[in-house]
């Protein structure tokens, strides 16, 4: 490294900005190891676009974007990069990009990269950062937001102040407009919109932090100064943006076409110019809204300072919950551990409102059988006795025979005839099973929970479709008595028997 590096304060900042891109390169280089045609995809580009999409949803419009919307947006991008990619595979790519940006591999902890600090005798140091992070927004729920490091990735120049980036962006835009490079100017304007969103997000977060803790937000000088600077910066931005809009509109007029004519001419340059004006107007709206917000910020500060100075100081935690609380508790003897766990839970569970007595619930409460508490039961293993499990009364052969017999019923047949046929099968008790089934089909309303025959029927005889009717003829059988039922193939005719078999 050059000898001047140690004295260059931007060196470490630039180094860190570069390190923050490493997860993207790692994702890109890992794609050759994957199957499913990922090699032609540009995963670095996808990651960058993902951050762009997130930033588009930050600032005054909200805290960020929900996971589903981002996944959908990424999915569309993957599909347009490689239209022949299988839908499931495209979803997987989108999921992988998202997982990388969230550092899912390390349980969403911060990324950690080491570097040698030239200002500190090249000591190895850790640079920890996030790219996307989840924020809990009281209105939107859980959303994804871009971190400071991710924001650097969307700016063309790495690690530059947002304000500087905005000024530079405006200068570039002006130059592009003067030279009539509308295409390039549109791209720059899109970046300008993102920068405005990020700037709004930055300011809103400072205000939010202040609302929570004015001391930490630096009430003693820094924040009011920051607000003044922000107001001044915004006024400049507004003036610049208005200039640029005028310029772009003059350019449109020079093209000699009004908006109505666009549809017919559909000239590329004209459409671009209109898009440019739209983008710049969007920027102006963001600036104006933020400006209005800042004007009211000062009274908020004063009110918050009053409130917080009299509030009790927040408890500062100076221990590692895992190493210095959980592990020691796990080492404790049971009664002591229980005391610690009990007070921990009381503290974190929040208040529990005691349930009050309600007359309307009294009867139900009195009728409810007392619940057996596990704690009161003796802690004894019950002695289990091995029992012969009787699965079915009828053997498989018997069931197969009955199925065969009943499945073969093509025309209305008397139970007596079926019994005669049943007795010709070598398997035992086929006649018994056929009788039971006929009765069951005759009176299906007896089918109730816990009834083994019903379940058995559904399992084994679901394929057999017959209907059973009783025409009053008596069954003359040596074993079974009652009506000689008629068994017929089911033709969706409602059975209308009223008689009962014995």
């Amino acid at each position, binding site marked *: 490294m050059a000898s001047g590096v140690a004295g260059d304060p931007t060196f470490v900042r630039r180094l860190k900005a570069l390190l923050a891109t490493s997860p993207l390169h790692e994702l890109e280089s890992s794609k050759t190891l994957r199957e499913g045609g990922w090699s032609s995809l540009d995963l670095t580009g996808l990651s960058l676009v993902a951050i762009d999409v997130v930033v588009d949803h930050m600032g005054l419009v909200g805290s960020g974007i929900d996971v589903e919307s981002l996944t959908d947006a990424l999915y569309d991008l993957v599909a347009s990069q490689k239209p022949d990619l299988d839908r499931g595979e495209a979803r997987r790519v989108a999921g992988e990009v998202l997982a990388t940006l969230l550092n899912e591999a390390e*349980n*969403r902890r911060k990324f950690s990269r080491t570097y040698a600090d030239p200002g500190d005798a090249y000591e190895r140091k850790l640079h920890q950062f*996030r790219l996307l*992070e*989840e*924020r*809990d927004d*009281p*209105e939107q729920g*859980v959303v994804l937001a871009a971190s400071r490091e991710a924001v650097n990735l969307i700016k063309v120049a790495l690690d530059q102040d947002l304000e500087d980036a905005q000024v530079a962006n405006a200068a570039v835009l002006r130059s592009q407009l003067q030279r009539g490079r509308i295409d390039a100017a549109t791209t720059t304007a899109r970046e300008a919109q993102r920068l405005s969103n990020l700037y709004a997000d930055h300011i809103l977060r400072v205000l939010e932090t202040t*609302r*929570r*803790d004015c001391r*930490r937000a630096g009430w003693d000088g820094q924040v009011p100064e920051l607000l003044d600077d922000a107001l001044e910066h915004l006024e400049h931005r507004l003036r610049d943006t208005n200039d640029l809009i005028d310029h772009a509109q003059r350019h449109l007029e020079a093209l000699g076409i009004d908006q109505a004519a666009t549809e017919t001419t559909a000239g590329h340059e004209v459409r671009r110019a209109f898009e440019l004006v739209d983008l710049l107007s969007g920027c102006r709206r963001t600036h104006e809204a933020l400006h209005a917000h800042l004007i009211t910020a000062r009274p908020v500060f004063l*009110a918050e300072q*009053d*409130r917080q100075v*009299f509030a009790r100081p*927040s408890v500062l*935690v*100076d*221990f*590692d*919950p*895992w*190493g210095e*609380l*959980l*592990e020691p*508790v*796990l*080492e*404790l*003897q*049971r009664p002591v*551990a*229980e005391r610690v*766990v*009990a*007070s*921990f*839970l*009381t*503290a*974190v*569970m*929040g*208040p*529990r*409102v*005691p349930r009050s007595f309600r007359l309307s619930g009294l009867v139900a409460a009195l009728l409810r059988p007392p*619940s057996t*508490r*596990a*704690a009161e039961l003796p*802690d004894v293993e019950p002695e289990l006795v091995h029992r012969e499990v009787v699965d079915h009364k009828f053997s498989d052969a018997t069931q197969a025979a009955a199925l065969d017999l009943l499945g073969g019923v093509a025309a209305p047949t008397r139970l007596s005839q079926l019994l005669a046929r049943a007795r010709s099968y070598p398997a035992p008790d086929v006649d018994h099973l056929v009788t039971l089934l006929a009765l069951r089909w005759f009176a299906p309303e007896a089918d109730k929970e816990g009834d083994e025959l019903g379940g058995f029927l559904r399992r084994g005889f679901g394929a057999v479709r017959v209907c059973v009717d009783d025409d009053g003829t008596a069954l003359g059988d040596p074993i079974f008595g009652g009506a000689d039922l008629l068994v017929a193939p089911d033709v969706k005719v409602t059975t209308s028997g009223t008689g009962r078999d014995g």
Partner: protein
Amino acid sequence: MDEELRADPATRMSTEAERAVEAGRLLAFGLQPRLRPARSEDYAALLRRYRDDVQLRTMVDGVAAGLGLAVLDADDYGLVLAATEESVFAWHLDNYRRDMGVEERLLHGLVHLGIAAYCYPTAESLDPEEERVVRTVSAAAVERDLRDTCQRLEERLGAPKTCLRPHPSSNGR
């Protein structure tokens, strides 16, 4: 408002009584932890008043302290309350799953502690700067880390009396 109070004792009575009613209503909102001010205009208005009106704040904090409650925060998530162990609102370990034995309940308590420590493992993770970052846990990850820790402690201490012993089916992970 002070002028007004001194001028007419009847006004003072009514404002004090009104403030007490407001304090009670705000505490009642706070005792419903799932309720968000964003969903109740009344709640949001009371919270704003709590932040701006020192007298109301003093009364809410005082009544809360008497009930054994501490006001931790008053923000977009509502009035965040915590009960002391003596409070009637305190949550106790024996309120937890009455169908469980003492030991099982303790294990559940340790798992709760484990989940909290997993989400906020270090003092740095409890830094208020990080408070808006959502912590995500999966049962498998917590279980893995807890078992690892328990096994390490078991190896070191030898007698696993209060430790969560690795389940035989989990290959000692």
